[in-house]
């Protein structure tokens, strides 16, 4: 058993029983990163000095007999779109290549309050736009299960780092599946909390009515520990809320559980289906559902009739919000500016904007800014943006209706296992389709978990467990039932 194999609570036990020091632990992970990241490329920045000093502080606490929090001394990795004070934060973009975060995100403040050890910042698709981490302006990350394949995206660096034991846990962010799809591809546990359950303060904005920060971990217990540490109302984010009380595991009885399985997500004989589920994935997911049935849960076929409209709806609203959010990168306040390029031919203010943004943003980001600007522009607003917002209502109502009869909804987290590097990068629309099973959840703001539930050709597959708003603890308990009976 290596130090880097341990879960949060086992690592915590080791620390308080003095089987190893926080410094030894931190060094073991830094060593692991040095050894493994040469081929995985999960990290954009490794912050050795900060990590070691944080670890030393924890050792001082332990040696003076003070109690350390559960996350104290536990090495973690942070998606490079979440601000850590005085550490570079690039959002995977050239436009923020040299940007040093001036403050801590609320989630980081909370983790630092628990004396966490931050090893570094992980790779992502530029501004969290993509599905494979290939849109990073710096380099693609590789899937630890098969180096020829993508880790998924956009939190691909975080997923790969957890899967390769380069950290105990990581934080990701999810706008349309960016925690759950890479978790599925890399075989780790990933939770997208309810919209508002975790503060977005210090998360670089992509689409503000969708974005959520969440944990990516090796087990559900770890996921719960990290979620409990980062959740809650924050006065710096007016959309954040205090989540409901916890469900005690003894209260949750599997034979009283009603699971809804939406027919639109599978190749069933009836109903209109969303395209492209891999037969291997379907088999693994159905086996997982059957396991719950064998343990006494009631499984019911349900319908989410507007599922096929979720993706086009998402690709109007999200780029619209992104085009507004990304207007702040103007080459004047911070970030890349062509005014500093001696070769550029800038004559006026407009040139500063045009050139800085041309040079600073990659193709996918520019494509989405264009799409959003188009949808919001005069003459198109009603036909695109307003229509999409109305379809969003219908997608949300599908879930509301379904949840009147069932406790949770089970679907695959992704229609396929991890695909090959380069396979979809030249066709934006094909890339968009790889998020087809996760996007509806963000439109409706619901919490959802991706849980490793099997493999197809040695590639991990994630079961998506969707809950009612603020019922994170319930979906985590339901996931534990599967984990225990594996």
């Amino acid at each position, binding site marked *: 058993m290596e130090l880097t194999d341990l879960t949060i609570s086992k690592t915590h036990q080791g620390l308080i029983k003095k089987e190893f020091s926080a410094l030894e632990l931190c060094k073991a992970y830094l060593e692991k990163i040095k050894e493994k990241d040469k081929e995985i490329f999960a990290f954009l920045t490794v912050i050795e000095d900060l990590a070691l000093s944080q670890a030393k502080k924890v050792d001082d606490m332990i040696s003076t007999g003070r109690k350390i929090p559960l996350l104290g001394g536990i090495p973690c990795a942070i998606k490079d779109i979440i601000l850590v004070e005085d550490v570079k934060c690039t959002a995977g973009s050239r436009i923020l290549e040299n940007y040093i975060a001036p403050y801590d995100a609320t989630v980081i403040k909370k983790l630092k309050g628990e004396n966490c050890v931050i090893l570094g910042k992980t790779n992502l698709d530029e501004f969290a736009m993509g599905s494979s981490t290939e849109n990073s302006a710096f380099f693609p990350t590789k899937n630890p299960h098969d180096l020829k394949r993508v880790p998924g995206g956009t939190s691909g660096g975080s997923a790969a780092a957890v899967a390769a034991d380069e950290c105990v846990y990581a934080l990701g962010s999810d706008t349309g599946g960016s925690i759950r799809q890479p978790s599925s591809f890399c075989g780790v546990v990933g939770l997208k909390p309810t919209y508002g359950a975790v503060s977005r303060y210090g998360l670089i904005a992509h689409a503000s*009515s969708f974005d959520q920060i969440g944990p990516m971990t090796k087990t559900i217990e770890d996921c719960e520990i990290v979620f409990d540490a980062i959740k809650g109302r924050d006065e710096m984010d007016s959309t954040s809320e205090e989540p409901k009380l916890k469900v005690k595991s003894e209260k949750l009885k599997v034979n009283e559980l009603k699971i809804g399985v939406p027919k639109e997500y599978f190749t069933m004989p009836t109903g209109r289906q969303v395209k492209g589920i891999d037969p291997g994935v379907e088999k693994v997911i159905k086996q997982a559902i059957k396991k719950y049935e064998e343990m006494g849960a009631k499984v019911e076929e349900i319908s989410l009739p507007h599922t096929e*409209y979720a993706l086009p709806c998402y*690709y109007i609203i999200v780029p619209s919000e992104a085009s507004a959010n990304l207007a702040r990168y103007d080459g004047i306040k911070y970030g890349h500016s062509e*005014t*500093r390029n001696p070769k550029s031919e800038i004559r006026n203010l407009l040139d500063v904007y*045009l050139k800085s943004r*041309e040079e600073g943003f990659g193709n996918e980001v*520019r494509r989405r800014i264009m799409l959003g600007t188009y949808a919001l522009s005069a003459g198109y607003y009603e036909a695109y943006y307003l*229509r999409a917002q109305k379809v969003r209502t219908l997608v949300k109502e599908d879930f509301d209706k379904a949840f009147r009869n069932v406790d949770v909804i089970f679907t695959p987290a992704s229609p396929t296992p991890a695909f090959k590097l380069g396979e979809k990068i030249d066709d934006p629309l094909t890339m968009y389709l790889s998020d087809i099973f996760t996007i509806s959840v*963000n439109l409706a703001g619901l919490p959802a978990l991706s849980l490793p539930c099997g493999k197809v050709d040695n590639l991990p597959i994630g079961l998506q467990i969707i809950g009612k708003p603020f019922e994170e603890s319930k979906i985590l308990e339901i996931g534990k039932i599967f984990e225990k009976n594996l």
Partner: protein
Amino acid sequence: MINKQEVQHIAKLARLGLTPKEVAQFQKELSKILDYIEKLKEVDISKVEPTSHSIRVENIMRIDESKKEKIEIGKKLVEMAPEKKGGFLKTKSIIKLPFTEAQMKKRASPSSPN
């Protein structure tokens, strides 16, 4: 289908520089995405209200008072600007002035008759 002029118009609205080759590429890609999005027209939305936030949000009030921030924070933020001068961010001029910078200085100096 979106034409080249529209792509150039949108790019200018979005303040994005595009090379001629990119205009053609974006025209092709955006058209394909917009065609796919046409699917939304199949949905009957005549009696549906729009959703802007998935979870019900209300306006949150707080006392309007200035927050005491450390002076270093301000310095740190200005320090990040690509061009700055005397604690301010510097930009290209927004309004075209009728006189040069030297003339401005002269007008502002105490020795000037005004």
